């Protein structure tokens, strides 16, 4: 790891100022960033830890009934405290392993936007809103490709607001060595329709499977997606599975998620 200056602001305002420095990088739980630093794949001059900022931690429900989760909230805290949205709590409880869940944060995961991370699928399928220190970003506008988001340099995720669906479920086919999703599918049924988000599968990162959304909005049953085949175009093909295999898994996991709702 290259050397850097470490800062640990206690307020959001101080963190925003610190991130204004040349070559500054925000640090969430660090469960991805620290291994990346060790491999010298990143070399910030200043590392600004968000872990000391109490105002971006915690879970509450807003007047619109949305579940609001602070950007600095750990996966373990979401697993325990997001009882109002059980599918989201279950997803958080399945990320990594217990030690990772005690340190990694939702804001960190979303800012990184790993194509195989779990949280992006929940955020996109829920139509959640990502709140930063400067603005609110709709999930449909936020994810812009593998490790790419709508965040500007120095912008900090302060909160994520999840509309709570009538029914929802997340199915993850685990890549056993890393415990990331080889493919993960999050299905959420709202009054005005169904949203299906797929992670782990695409070279473009998390995406909505609109054919399945249409079929499930007309008939919310596993049978409705039984004959549906996801396109293998632009899907990830690697040592763990080919594009056709991932396309197949998308269909299987979507059916399972609906059946489990």
């Amino acid at each position, binding site marked *: 790891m290259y050397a850097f*200056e470490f800062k640990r602001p206690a307020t959001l305002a101080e963190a925003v100022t610190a991130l204004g420095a040349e070559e500054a990088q925000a*640090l969430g739980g660090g469960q991805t960033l*620290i291994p990346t630093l*060790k491999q010298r794949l990143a070399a910030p001059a200043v590392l600004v830890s968000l872990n000391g900022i109490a105002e971006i931690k915690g879970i509450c429900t807003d007047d619109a009934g949305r579940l609001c989760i602070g950007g600095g909230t750990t996966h373990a805290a979401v697993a325990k405290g997001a009882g109002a949205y059980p599918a989201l709590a279950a997803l958080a409880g399945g990320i990594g*392993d217990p*030690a*990772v869940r*005690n340190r990694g944060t939702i804001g960190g995961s979303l800012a990184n936007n790993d194509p195989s991370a779990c949280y992006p699928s929940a955020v996109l399928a829920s139509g959640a809103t990502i709140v930063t220190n400067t603005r609110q970003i709709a999930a449909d506008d936020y994810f812009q490709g593998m490790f790419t988001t709508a965040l500007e340099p120095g912008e900090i995720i302060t909160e994520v607001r999840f509309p709570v669906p009538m029914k929802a479920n997340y199915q993850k086919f685990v890549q056993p*060595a890393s415990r990331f999703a080889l493919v993960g599918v999050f299905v959420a049924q709202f009054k005005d329709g169904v949203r299906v988000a797929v992670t782990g599968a695409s070279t473009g990162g998390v995406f909505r499977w609109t054919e399945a959304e249409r079929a499930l909005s007309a008939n919310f049953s596993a049978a409705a997606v039984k004959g549906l085949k996801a396109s293998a175009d632009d899907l990830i093909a690697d040592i763990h599975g080919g594009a056709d295999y991932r396309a197949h898994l998308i269909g299987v996991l979507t059916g399972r998620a609906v059946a489990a709702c």
Partner: protein
Amino acid sequence: MPKVTMRVNGRQVSGEVEGRTLLVQFLREGLEMTGTHVGCDTSQCGACVVHVNGAAMKSCTTFALDLEGAEVKTIEGMAAADGSLGVIQQAFQDHHGLQCGFCTPGMVMSAAALLAENPKPTEAEVRHYLEGNICRCTGYHNIVKAVMAASGQDVSAIAAE
């Protein structure tokens, strides 16, 4: 160099560290507490697990300076005051829950975190909770057996191998 202060096993400690100093380096090289091991250095093996404010964390994937004022517990804090083994450590010895012993500090700390939140886990719950702790010797059976025994449950029916 910046200075960090925290409590380790109930003792107030402080030291000068670099921004990039990991908690495990502060423990091993700064405080000369070498019980916490670095197995993989890539956040996968769990040998470096310690408790930070009561929660299991990978000390190789946490910066020392990020833990200013934290309460840290390491394997050195698991023995009784007279130096005799703690309940979980004794169970690992009784049930041969280790061979080379390299993963054991992390295993014991993870097991302690599990039993703190779930005092009577099932065998499946133990296996699931320990998924972030890798052992290349035992095949896990005796580790699971030791954790079950440490929880005060009858392990006579659990296969030894």
